[in-house]
């Protein structure tokens, strides 16, 4: 692909709001995870809850979109000068030439879960429930499009935990075919009961802090996040470049990865080919690394088969939690921070390295020049996406 300029980017996770807070936490090897407080749930698990979401007020005129997911989106949009950058892009290209493509898995579903607890005597949902503006999967893209006063094409990609990696591919395709000149991409997913109880029902939730790549890892910690990037056809002062996108499907099982990572291998190869790069050109790999026994084992085999065991890699989900539909966007932003600051972030919470895993997994931060990063995102339904980012030069 023709490299795409990333001219603004921001993320809000349990580590804090904005890039500086994230970088400080990564540099300190500090996790944002804590025992679950959300909704006073009886589950024994840890979560990466974003502070202050409940207090966020949506912009005037957009009250119907009010739900945790869109509050988190609005909190995220206000960081790191993103609103100004989008305004400049709108002026440069025109509002109709800027698209909005976001990933989410559960959108504003928490609003529906709450509404089901407030049903009328006849079973009806309360009249203040707005299906389209909150629960519907498109809600967050509709909200962001309105909040940013954009009129280009928009949609949500919802392929579970690969959603907000795949939106970078959407933007690249629509820019390449001339339908748009720029796009706001990213992902927003927020805590809700469906994912917490759902992953619990599959016995994929850890009852302690998640420990990617640990020999005794026993599941994930769910987080929430909003991550956004402004990508443009060209720029004289980009923050980073999107160099390649690879997408594939396992065609194997709905909730278990292919044991040899066959689909993951295909996605990584496709991303490298799209970038015109060889495996040796990648300095650091941000793993999907959920800390479920099956994901880390399959991903380790897949990454090793493409890169060999030596490439430094880590999962940052021990810091942010697994932010599901936002994970691809969050980790794209971490990839850009890694390049900008020459920081390969450590994988946190590891006590005993799994001796069955062969990759060069970083347990401590490594400071070294990082020119190019590959980031993996895999999801239910066998959906795989790999992204390659490069530095501003």
């Amino acid at each position, binding site marked *: 692909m023709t490299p795409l300029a990333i001219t603004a980017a921001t993320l809000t996770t349990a580590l804090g709001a904005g890039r500086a807070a994230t970088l400080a936490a990564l540099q300190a090897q500090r996790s944002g995870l804590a025992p679950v407080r959300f909704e006073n749930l009886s589950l024994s698990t840890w979560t990466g809850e974003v502070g202050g979401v409940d207090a966020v007020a949506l912009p005037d005129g957009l009250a119907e979109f009010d739900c945790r997911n869109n509050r988190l989106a609005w909190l995220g949009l206000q960081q790191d000068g993103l609103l100004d950058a989008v305004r400049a892009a709108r002026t440069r290209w025109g509002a109709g030439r800027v698209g909005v493509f976001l990933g989410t898995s559960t959108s504003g579903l928490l609003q529906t879960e709450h509404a*089901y607890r407030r049903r009328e005597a006849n*079973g009806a949902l309360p009249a203040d429930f707005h299906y389209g503006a909150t629960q519907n999967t498109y*809600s967050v893209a509709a909200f962001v499009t309105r909040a940013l006063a954009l009129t*280009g094409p928009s949609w949500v*990609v919802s*392929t579970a935990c690969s959603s907000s990696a795949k939106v970078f591919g959407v933007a690249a*395709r629509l820019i390449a075919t001339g339908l748009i000149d720029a796009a706001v991409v990213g992902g927003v997913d927020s805590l809700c009961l469906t994912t917490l109880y759902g992953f619990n029902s599959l016995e994929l939730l850890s009852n302690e802090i998640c420990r990617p790549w640990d020999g005794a890892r026993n599941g994930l910690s769910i987080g929430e996040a909003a991550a956004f990037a402004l990508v443009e056809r060209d720029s004289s002062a980009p923050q980073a470049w999107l160099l390649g996108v690879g997408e594939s499907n396992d065609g194997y099982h709905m909730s278990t990865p292919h044991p040899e990572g066959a689909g993951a291998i295909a996605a990584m190869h496709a991303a490298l080919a799209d970038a015109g790069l060889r495996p040796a050109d990648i300095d650091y790999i941000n793993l999907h690394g959920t800390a479920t026994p099956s994901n880390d084992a399959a991903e380790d085999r897949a990454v090793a088969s493409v890169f060999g065991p030596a490439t430094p890699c880590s999962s940052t989900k021990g810091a942010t939690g697994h932010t599901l539909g936002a994970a691809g966007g969050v980790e794209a932003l971490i990839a850009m921070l890694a390049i900008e600051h020459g920081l390969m972030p450590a994988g946190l919470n590891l006590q005993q390295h799994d001796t069955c895993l062969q990759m060069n997994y970083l347990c401590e931060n490594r400071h070294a020049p990082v020119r190019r990063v590959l980031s993996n995102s895999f999801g239910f339904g066998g959906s795989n996406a790999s992204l390659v980012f490069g530095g501003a030069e």
Partner: protein
Amino acid sequence: MTALKVWVQGIGLLGPGLASWTSAQDVLRGVQAYMSEPAVLPSPARLPPAERRRAGAAVKLALAVADEAVAQAQVDPGTLATVFTSSSGEGINCHALCETLALPAPMVSPTRFTNSVHNAAAGCWHIAVASRASSTSLCAFDGSFGAGLIEAVTSVCLSGQPMLLVASDSPYPEPLHSMRALPDHFGVALLLTPEPGAEPVAELAITLDASASAVSSCDDPSLEVLREAIPAAHALPLLSALARTRAKQRIVLDYLPHLRVQIDLA
């Protein structure tokens, strides 16, 4: 803006009173009156028995129209990339989960949770046909068909590879139905290719239209009601055009409030 050109090689259709693309030809051409009757979803024969038992309405609907389009185009689904687009996903599943989660100590069904993802139909299809090609699942509320069409067409034009587009919507049960009244199931699949192939149905030239062009409607008033009621049924004017004639014509489909999709058939 240069139009994006693709060929339609195969079509699948299933909706109320529209049992398949093949059987709906006369209705779509306007030579037979449209008679609405509840859509009947076939059991997805392609799925392994365990997955077949678990398949909900959204999966059955999507797989039925995907199968018809692939059969008509005579392509190998095992290498086929896909775009699935839906306004809603699996409504009964969503309702059951929300009912369970309203209880004090919820016991969620792992199968229900797994199948609650928006890409459940895509995942099932790729398992059924053993395809590792790329797949995406989209939503743009009432504009979901337009979003899927744009995504599919850009991918075909850039990759030079065929693409299966599946747009489908299934109704929610009450109480969600009162908040989002989708009257019945409706699914459409288009097998799109960069080259005409052996028996192409038509060539489409697609652009985004930000002007205030009138959206194409259905001649039959009952079909027009259906078009307006279900997001995937926004494709009906295109399907009628594809069924009627191969003469040149222009179709404008609803997408977003400020954006339409213009399709020139050649």
